[in-house]
């Protein structure tokens, strides 16, 4: 059985030191919860460079290509209108919509990629929410969490207390 161990810290560097110490001891599932983006958290958890820009690029290119091909098909193939004898396929006139669709697809890719892909949202039932004190994680406190095997939970809780956590809780995963 898995369990989540949570510890609340008051000071940024105590939390970051604790995260580094635990990671050095091989805890891979560590996470930090803070009310604002915490400087140094990425490094303490050993997070790799975000791949979101790639998602944005793929979205943007898809949108722009879709936009251009759509206009090409509509204006040059499906419904060629002769307006002032301009060519049916007039690239300069297609730029605005190509640009707009590029931006639109890129923004949609970023937003839904973040929420659905990177964050796994919606997920309002995460085990950390079982702890009432965890409410402070979005207000004024910093929390460290780790997912471990049930038997390792108690030793990790001890360790967190030793590293300076004030509230320490263990949430057994519902089976």
């Amino acid at each position, binding site marked *: 059985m898995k369990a989540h161990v949570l510890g609340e810290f008051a000071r940024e*560097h*105590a939390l970051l030191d604790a995260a580094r110490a635990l990671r050095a001891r091989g805890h891979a599932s560590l996470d930090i919860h*803070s009310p604002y983006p915490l400087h140094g958290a990425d490094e303490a958890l050993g997070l790799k460079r975000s791949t979101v820009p790639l998602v944005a690029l793929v979205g*943007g290119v898809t949108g722009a290509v879709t936009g251009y091909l759509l206009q090409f098909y509509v204006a040059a193939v499906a419904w060629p209108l002769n*307006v002032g004898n301009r060519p049916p396929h007039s690239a300069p006139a297609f730029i*605005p919509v190509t640009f707009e669709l590029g931006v639109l697809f890129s*923004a949609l890719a970023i937003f839904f990629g973040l929420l659905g892909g990177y*964050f796994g949202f919606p997920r309002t039932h995460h085990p950390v929410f079982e702890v009432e004190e965890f409410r402070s994680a979005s207000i004024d406190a910093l929390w460290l969490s780790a997912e471990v095997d049930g038997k390792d939970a108690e030793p990790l809780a001890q360790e967190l207390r030793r590293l300076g956590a004030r509230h320490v809780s263990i949430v057994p995963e519902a089976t």
Partner: protein
Amino acid sequence: MSTAEKTIEEAQALEGAPVLVGRPDDRALTEGLLAPVLEPTRKGFVLLLFALLGGVGFWLISLGATLFVGIGAWGNNIPVAWAYDITNFVWWIGIGHAGTLISAILLLFQQKWRTSINRFAEAMTLFAVAMAGIYPIIHLGRPWLFWWLIPYPSTNQIWPNFKSALPWDVFAISTYGTVSLLFWYLGLIPDLATLRDAAKSRTRRVVYGIMSFGWRGSARHWHHYRVGYLLLAGLSTPLVVSVHTIVSFDFAISQLPGWHTTIFPPYFVAGAIFSGFAMVMTLMIPARRVLGFKHVVTERHLDNMAKVILATGLMVSYGYVMEHFMAWYSGSGYEAFAFLNRWTGPYAPIWYMQLFCNVLAPQVFWFPSMRRNEVALFVVSILVNIGMWAERFVIIAVSLTRDFVPSSWAMYSPTWVDWGLLFGSISTFGLLFLLFLRFLPAIPVFEVKELRRELEHHGPGVHFQSPADAPGAHIEDPEEAT
């Protein structure tokens, strides 16, 4: 006040008012900023709500008249086929631009003062774009067929003409509305989670819990979140410029004297930012007073916004001068007449009002005392709003009343439906904004917390102790313990 705190105040005195007054701790900051949402309903809110609902009623009646009677309910005619409707459209979409400028462009420029007003300005953008989007649709004549604007393989076998500026508008406005909504909501998610955690009632916890999708402030999420947010800002920056550029193409690409001008794209974008900042000011001055945001929206913010209004006002004035120069320099008698008509024609009073509101009124902001005087700021912001509406009316409708052939000239006068659509949309915008202030965090709480830390750590030459580091405030640090 500790020595460190005193030094920081002194250092800030050198560079004007601070962007954040005092150093409240995170809990006090959260409670203060969320108070308008969490505290019991005030009497003033209810009164304002009913007053605005009256205006919304007027708007709905005018919309109803438009739907049942048709465009004939308006004062529009031929040649003045575009009048209040398109004026309102351009005015509202322009107002929206300041929100994106504050939230995206100033973010990329790392302007710290944007932090506390960005949510507010983005909400304004969203509601302004919603108002703007209605006019082109009801102007279609048969608005229930609005989906013909979207290219899809229909049984009519007819497609939109992408060589016209009007289908570009459809894509620009819908993209702008969608991206503004996504950007605003992405910024809201951490604050909705804060609301969920700070709320006392179960209903609020459940509703804000669902709205925040289960945000748990995870560093693994913040890691991607910050990159995504910055990328959205980067995308919004060219987008906002493209949107008003495309709106200006609706006019600039045509042949009509007064519309047919290459300066329109930059001139429209500057005007958009000008009117948008004025609207942010109009809304912010009463809101910061009533909701107790004076410590996060300080004199510094008002001062900076006034400077932006002055700068963009000068750009708009340059646009006016250049339009006249080109009318003369082009050697086209029709162009010259269109501009002479502004000074001496039947609509000249509106032109003079425009000059007074957009060119003269902002000049008071050369005086630093005026940039901090709430009354002066409020009055000028209202004047600029009026002036920019007048500018769009003069460009759109007045140009149409006098085109090439005198036999096709006609006068334009609005009907009660036109007025209802204008004032009703202002009320509806106000209502949406009021509800936003009541139910959502108007100041980005997490960003202000971040700003507070930045000011502490990278403040003007001062290393300030955070309250969490104050002696005896909290538990021992393992390093010190050993």
